[in-house]
């Protein structure tokens, strides 16, 4: 199953308003500690980084470690300054990235 992502962000906001952003991504966050049914180690594969860009500028970022449960969920806040794009980007330790964008209109 592909890595589905959910994003919650207001479509509109007034300038200076503090807005809540939420994101949920489907990922196994395989810790590398687990054994499969044959007793062999399941190779580690986790997301290692999350970044949120507001019109290209990083406004929030997080480093993930392997203690983080599957399907990580983040809530964070930012101040609405201008209309534009919010880009949500996850980076897996393999280098693979998952991205989604939403538009926001600030008046």
């Amino acid at each position: 199953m592909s890595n589905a992502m959910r994003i919650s962000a207001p479509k509109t906001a007034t300038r200076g308003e503090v807005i809540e952003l939420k994101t949920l991504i489907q990922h196994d966050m395989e810790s590398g500690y687990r054994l499969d049914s044959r007793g062999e180690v399941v190779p580690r594969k986790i997301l290692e980084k999350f970044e949120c860009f507001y019109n290209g500028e990083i406004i929030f970022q997080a480093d993930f470690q392997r203690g983080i449960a599957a399907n990580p969920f983040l809530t964070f806040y930012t101040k609405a300054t201008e209309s534009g794009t919010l880009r949500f980007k996850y980076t897996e330790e393999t280098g693979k990235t998952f991205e989604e964008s939403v538009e926001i209109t600030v008046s």
Partner: protein
Amino acid sequence: MKYLAFGIGLVLSACGDSQTTRDAPAPMPLKSGTEFLTLETQALQADTFANPAMLWVDRGQTLFTKPVDMGMGIEKACADCHSETTRPLTQSAAHFPKLDEKSGALVNLEEQINLCRIRYQNTTALDYESQDLLALTAYTAHQSNGQAISVNATPKTQKNFENGKDYFFTKRGQMNFSCAQCHDENWGKKLRGDTISQGHGNGFPAYRLEWETIGSLHRRFADCDRGVRAQPLELGSETYTDLELYLAVRGNGLDIETPAIRR
């Protein structure tokens, strides 16, 4: 003596009127698994954005509307048959498992989806517990959220019901426990750090924190079987579907709350 026997017979037949209560003694009051969760987990379940199982509901919605190639250039999606006006699914999950008239077999929602695929989309059945089947089941059942379970054994499914009931009350495994011993007799008490639930299936497919993913009711059954150190049955097996029928009858009146969060 003869009159006394007749009197007893009367009393027995009077009890027999409330078929479901007699056949499926339900815990009173009925409590969904949600009520045994912590407030934080209840809040996670209620939040339709943060509930991680909604990832599968989203996926199910995509699959539901995606046309399946039937060969000869014909394509058909689930949504082509099931729209809001024709055969809507807003109540379906509350009536499963039920008899499939064509084959005479008892089917649960998963099996019904596969029957639809084979009969109307001319394609193959999805593997039980595959991500796609879980997604479609979760999406379909989610449409019935808030509907009360309404399932009764009919003469044609009585045998399945009895088999499911038998499974529920039979002691098994190294621990020698039946389902009933925990979920009928000791619900609400502690099993190590956990509160024992009444064992209803109204939230499934559900996201179990232990699994860190969504899973079917049959997978939950298999986990319970393993818990008492019994050999679990195959997912999708007839006996598990029979047990699903027994639980549905026993849980009649509980609201569907798929996709639920469970420990």
